[in-house]
């Protein structure tokens, strides 16, 4: 009857997975949808092997936005960053497993958008000129992003 609000979605809304914060995240971003007040902060720890070592989200908002964040954090744990970066909007919708009306799409996609922002910010921070960094190759390489 209520596919959109099937038990799994409500479960993730009431007892979201990976809800909270990380002490020393490698990537963090606070996304929000000012139109409705949905807010999600994503935090990631990235292991030396380039995989998502740990992930947490906090926030408030509608069931769709929070459930989507909860499902997404489960999905990315242990995955290589490249996989996470490649996640698409459709992947989120598949995770939720329901038909989302255009009006509610932003709610569903906020978590992925926030996650991608976090990774982008982290990538931009690493690309900033810092010649002494370990593993550096060509110091003259490229203009700053």
């Amino acid at each position: 009857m209520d596919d959109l609000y099937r038990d799994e979605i409500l479960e993730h809304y009431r007892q979201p997975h990976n809800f909270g914060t990380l002490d020393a995240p490698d990537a963090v971003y606070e996304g929000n949808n000012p139109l409705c007040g949905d807010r999600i902060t994503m935090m990631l720890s990235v292991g030396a092997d380039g995989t998502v070592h740990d992930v947490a989200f906090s926030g408030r908002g509608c069931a769709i936005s929070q459930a989507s964040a909860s499902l997404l954090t489960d999905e990315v744990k242990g995955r290589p960053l490249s996989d996470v970066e490649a996640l698409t909007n459709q992947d989120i919708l598949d995770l939720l497993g329901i038909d989302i009306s255009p009006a509610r799409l932003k709610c569903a996609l906020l978590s992925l958008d926030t996650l991608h922002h976090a990774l982008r910010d982290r990538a931009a921070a690493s690309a900033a000129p810092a010649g002494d960094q370990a593993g550096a190759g060509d110091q003259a390489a490229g203009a700053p992003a």
Partner: protein
Amino acid sequence: MAAVNHHSPLDPDVIRRDFPIFERDFGGRRLAYLDSAATALKPRAVIEAVDAYNSRYSANVHRGIYTIGEEATAAYEGAREKVARFLGAPDSREIIFVRNATEAINLVAYAWGRRNIGRADTILLTELEHHANLVPWQLLAQEKDADLEFVPFDAEGHLIMDSWEVLLRTRPRLVAFTHKSNGLGTLLPARQMVQQAHDVGALVLVDGAQAVPHLPVDVADIGADFYVFSGHKVLGPTGSGALWARAEILEAMPPFMSGGEMISSVHLRHTTFNDIPHKFEAGTPDVAAAIGLGAAVDYLAAIGMERVAEHEEALTAYALEMLPREVPGIRIHGPRTAAERAGIVTFTLPEAHPHDIATLLDREAVAIRAGHHCTQPLHERLALPATGRASFSVYSGRDDIDRLAAGLRGVQRIFGGPA
């Protein structure tokens, strides 16, 4: 049009027969439309007036020396007269047709504001305002280096009149406020506030978008200098609305948009402008929408706005009494009594976000609004990211409110059930 007894309360079942949308089947149900504050449904009389223009005399206005041109002009200007009478405006030249209240306010901000607001001038608004009566003044204030001040509201959604009186001492150039809050339904004491604003030398713009559809409005009595409303909220077509302003103010104002229609004589390097109201109606107007608005105004005038107001107050009273009883834990925001807030019931449920509520209610063919209703500052003040809003019109009935309550109970069952 349905038979109307001027002495009896409105019967929504009878009124609904005038609105074709209620014939549509929504999963076996009739639409319970509770978002009239966003836009109103359209009666057959309005739809047919628009169709008649488009089918039988769809000429441009003020131009054609042929039959349908004259008919179109007569209908368009006739609609202007109807709106003037409906608003109690002394002179139909004071009615400018615009697309909506937002455009009306922008017209004043551009054409009056840029000429009359200067550095360090104060524009006094309230914290209840819809973005339409906020953002244009922000842009004007930024451009002119003028100051904005805001009258706050209390926990029940009433303006804090002590603060209002203190803020008047800043001697604002312009005071702009909503006649009735679209966020909480609060009715402001417009007449009194206009008087007080005039006493300190301010001009006053009143946003009547939520007032004109729901209670009798007499602009001459209220005494403001500018009064705006949206036609699509008064059962008129989308694309209709009007600005009323005093003739002497309009005559002194430079144009807003320019081009054809609003001119008198045009030369290569200089142009003289038309008289009011046409000075402010550049280009071909939305003739169909204006004619439709005229029909809408006729429809409401035949019912009588006093009866409309009584009807909505009674519905609001019903909702305020019944919802807390039927929907445990519901929080209703805004003034306590129906008389102070007719027609709008803004609420939250502890269990579920308004978006989720609205989506679930949609399943039951109940339409409410969820979000911040174009009043982000108001919601920030209430510390609520979003609210649900049910709003009424002539076609709304107790059955709609009953369906809202049942739907909200359903939401509570889904969200509040055992983990």
